[in-house]
């Protein structure tokens, strides 16, 4: 670590905000580019992921709500990519010139949301994960422009969460069939969102992002914050989730051993098939069923519209 890095780390831990590229060390800039790219890509890819299910909206009003959420997500991606431009990353390249496997977003979005029910559960579980991660960044980040940009993001994500929770409750209240549909979605999406927060702290012993105060909480701490919101909500509407408060009521604990094998096509967890975190990382990097299709959907908006006329 250079002396410039040491000074910068001390400065941000004393509460100073970094406001421009001139104040950054190369290492700070590299880490910031990485974390903001993950954030921007996650927002961007949530749009085609949600759109896929929004086509199944049960009414015009429901479709309008889903489209508003998708539009919000694109706006959030724009904020992140605008920040990346400041850091010297070309936005055209970010959007249009990367290969599908080069986008950095949670594996969960690669699994198709096939129904309106699954979209609503995604709003409640995935958006809660996004809200948890960005809420931590907003509270703790040392990069001023990102902190200010997140004011708008967090307000809009609150609506997404509410949308998901309300619809889950409505569908559950419709009767046993509705309740089962929501439970089925939660059964595969809950463990996927647990994975969303990354490797457990015991395996990820060092984080430059924490050193530079780009965020404030570790992976396991963030997972706890997420469970602290999602588990009580699910229990309040009578859904079963594989997590509960531990014996001394200090934290949530999972009722299964991480990590597990996941069948991405059948959308089921193989509860008896335990794998290593290396295998999970390989699964993440290999991407899932919707990766290429979603990137194609985004990149075709670049200006070549000849594809539109093929089927006419």
């Amino acid at each position: 670590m250079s002396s410039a890095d040491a000074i910068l780390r001390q400065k941000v831990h004393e509460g100073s905000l970094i406001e421009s590229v001139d104040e950054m060390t190369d290492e700070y800039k590299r880490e910031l580019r990485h974390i903001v790219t993950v954030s921007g890509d996650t927002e961007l890819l949530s749009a085609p992921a949600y759109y896929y299910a929004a086509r199944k909206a049960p009414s015009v009003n429901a479709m309008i709500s889903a489209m508003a959420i998708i539009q919000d997500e694109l706006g959030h991606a724009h904020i992140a990519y605008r920040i990346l431009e400041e850091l010297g990353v070309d936005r055209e390249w970010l959007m249009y010139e990367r290969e599908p496997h080069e986008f950095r977003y949670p594996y969960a979005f690669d699994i198709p949301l096939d129904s309106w029910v699954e979209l609503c559960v995604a709003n409640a579980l995935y958006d809660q994960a996004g809200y948890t991660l960005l809420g931590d960044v907003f509270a703790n980040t040392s990069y001023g422009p990102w902190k200010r940009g997140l004011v708008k993001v967090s307000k809009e994500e609150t609506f997404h969460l509410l949308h998901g929770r309300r619809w889950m409750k409505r569908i559950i209240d419709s009767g046993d069939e509705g309740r089962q549909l929501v439970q089925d979605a939660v059964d595969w999406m809950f463990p996927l969102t647990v994975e969303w927060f990354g490797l457990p702290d015991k395996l990820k012993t060092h984080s430059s992002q924490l050193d530079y105060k780009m965020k404030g909480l570790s992976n396991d701490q963030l997972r706890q914050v997420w469970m602290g919101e999602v588990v009580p909500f699910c229990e309040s509407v009578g859904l079963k989730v594989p997590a509960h408060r531990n014996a001394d009521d200090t934290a949530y604990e999972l009722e299964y051993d991480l990590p597990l094998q996941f069948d991405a096509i059948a959308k089921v967890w193989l509860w008896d098939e335990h794998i290593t975190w290396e295998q999970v990382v390989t699964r993440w990097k290999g991407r899932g069923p919707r990766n290429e299709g979603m990137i194609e959907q985004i990149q075709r908006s670049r200006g070549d519209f000849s594809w539109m006329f093929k089927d006419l």
Partner: protein
Amino acid sequence: MPTPEGGCGGPADRSRAMPAADVASKIRPETAALWEALRDVLDPEIPVNVVDLGLVCDIRRVGGTVDVDVTFTSTACPAVTIIKEDIQQRLLREPDVETVTVEETWEVNWTASRISGCGRDEMKRYGITL
């Protein structure tokens, strides 16, 4: 009057807590308590309640039956269903209210002039300028 999370209601300066003129003109003695109750219902995106935001256009009450007319800040408001549900649920908690019907009306054209003084203060506090 309960003070909702959004903050409007109960500040020292009562004139700031009054609904905007267009809204206040619709409040009748027999529905005043219902208007107050709806100050508990927040817009899901902006932390201002639906009365101070000027979304509630009229409330009519005959016995235990209540009809509410609401407008929205845009015709494609994504929160229509949530807001209507919240209004209904809140009014059903009022004494002797048995049925509540919430209908959209587009006869009232929502503009920022329908936002009360304290609604404006709240929005400003959250970084929204008008």
